[in-house]
């Protein structure tokens, strides 16, 4: 891990805090799901925290972001309130979407979060539209679209990158290549190693980052966003990473070689790597780091309490928001 730019200690700790918050949110939600407390599906992003936090740290609250079924991490990284997130997972009226969206549809207007999406690649054109809107309104906002390696096989991916290139839109397409599309390993769903090569089909720039190395992701995103704000057109970023869990909570992921997750967990844990870096460089000591974990653990359990104590939506809520 390498940091070539000046980053304040506070910023470092903030990044690590967010990574911990994501990890703990996912771990605890997973546990609650397996206990039957949380309905629906859950897709955990454990192992991909560096990508979420590294990218979102490089953009502002005014910038737009859209994500996928595996979106908790991105929402947290963009500043999402874990109380409202957890409540949404529980289907409670205090959730971001008043319990009508659930895990796969969390959005937050004030934070520029255009929404998770249950349709693979479904959010990519939408983010592209947000970028067009920013450009037409003459702001310097950018839009970030998160999606997976599998999503890059969808027609929606192709059409979005092409139109963004033609219109020179300030959109960062972030492919989190975790090497699997559900049960299908990358080599079985696309005949390329780097999704980034697909940028050539649209004559746009691309950049590959180590998605387990937050400093790498963060610095490369800063550079990319600078380009976007200059009006140089869209960029395709590929963050190589790995999802530790199954595709959804409950999936035993028998389709993976046994030692593969072990290898990533042991040697490429984004949080362990970053914590190690901070300690090695004497930016923080282990006490400080433990304090963060403790604080975030408490924060998530508080969120669980908040969700548990929240009300179910009133039945009338079901009939609202179909039309204005």
């Amino acid at each position: 891990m390498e940091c070539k730019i000046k980053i304040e200690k506070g910023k470092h700790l903030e990044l690590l805090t967010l990574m911990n918050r994501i990890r703990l949110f996912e771990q605890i939600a997973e546990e609650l799901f397996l206990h039957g407390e949380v309905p629906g599906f859950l897709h955990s992003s454990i192992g991909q925290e560096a990508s979420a936090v590294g990218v979102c740290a490089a953009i502002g609250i005014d910038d737009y972001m859209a994500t996928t079924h595996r979106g908790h991490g991105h929402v947290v990284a963009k500043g999402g309130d874990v109380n409202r997130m957890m409540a949404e997972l529980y289907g409670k009226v205090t959730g971001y979407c008043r319990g009508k969206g659930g895990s796969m549809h969390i959005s937050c207007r004030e934070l520029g979060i255009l929404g998770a999406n249950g349709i693979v690649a479904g959010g990519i054109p939408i983010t592209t539209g947000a970028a067009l809107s920013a450009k037409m309104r003459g702001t310097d906002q950018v839009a970030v679209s998160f999606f997976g390696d599998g999503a890059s096989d969808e027609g929606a991916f192709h059409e979005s990158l092409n139109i963004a290139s033609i219109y020179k839109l300030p959109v960062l397409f972030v492919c989190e290549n975790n090497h699997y599309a559900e049960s299908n390993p990358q080599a079985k769903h696309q005949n390329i190693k780097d999704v980034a090569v697909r940028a050539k089909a649209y004559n746009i720039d691309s950049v590959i980052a180590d998605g387990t190395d937050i400093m790498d992701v963060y610095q490369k995103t800063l550079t990319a966003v600078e380009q976007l704000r200059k009006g140089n057109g869209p960029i395709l970023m590929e963050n190589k990473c790995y999802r530790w869990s199954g595709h959804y909570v409950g999936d035993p992921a028998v389709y993976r070689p046994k030692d593969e997750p072990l290898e990533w967990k042991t040697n490429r844990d984004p949080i362990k790597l970053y914590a190690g870096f901070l300690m090695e460089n004497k930016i923080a000591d282990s006490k400080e780091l433990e304090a963060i974990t403790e604080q975030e653990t408490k924060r998530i359990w508080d969120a669980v309490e908040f969700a548990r104590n929240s009300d179910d939506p009133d039945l009338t809520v079901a009939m609202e928001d179909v039309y204005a």
Partner: protein
Amino acid sequence: MPRSMTYRDALREALREELIRDERIFLLGEDIEDPFGGTYKVTQGLTEEFGHDRVRNTPISEIAITGVALGAAMTGMRPVAELMYVDFAGCAMDQIMNQIAKMRYMSGGQVEAPLVIRTQQGTGRSSAAQHAQSLEAMFAHIPGLKVAMPVTPYDAKGMLKAAIRDPDPVIFLEHKLLYNTTGEVPEEDYVVPLGVADVKRVGTDVTIVATSRMVLHALDAAEILAKDGISVEVVDPRSIVPLDQETIFDSLRKTHRLMVVHEAVERNGWGAELCALVMDHCFDELDAPVKRIASKNTPVPFAPVLENFVVPSVEEIVAGVKDLLV
């Protein structure tokens, strides 16, 4: 002062006036820019006036057209997207049905999707199976969408303005055979609200509810039937979502006989929904079963003789009304 103008010109005038009124509005679609000005020339001249930023060509990418419109609508713009033919909605159906229609709901009311998808549908030009469908029933089945189907230049202009100003996504279905038809259009700004039916002809014996171009067929049939002393009331719902049920039911309460005519295929078409609504609300008013007249359950054939055969004709409507009265 009303002037006579074509359906095409009325639509263009609506777009132009709205583009002037609100700078959040912009148009996007395939081949809409000048000098081509759109396949049916509705947008002709608008690039010249408003520039390529606000009237923008897209690649042939219906997912992107609709998805980009949605993203823009969610972030403060008011896009009017054009799908060149309604048939191409097949390419964009995920964005239309899973994203655009549901965004407000899934977000718990946080976001709006104030956008219009303008497109045209229908038969009559030997466009064959992939360029001549009528798909309003599909859209009506998707909660979250509004569905407009104007027949006159007056309605076209007023409803397009209403659609553009609407906070919800509206599928705006023009008809390819109507672009050259003419009618009176006021000079002043006006709006025809969605969800308000129009009694296009007053009558007492039978009510015909017809949509889009079939309103013209119904009016022709009414004229013929009048010679036989049969008085037909023609009700045009103008939008099928929202639907002005009351105007339809009021007419039925007067005539006690109802026919529904549309150009979409019969099976699971909108006429079925109207039958069901009448069952629910006005069963006792019926002196005869509701009669559906719609296209036959086939893809649209190319040959003009066959195309004419599968689509409702004025004669079929005339005969159907007589059936209803025996």
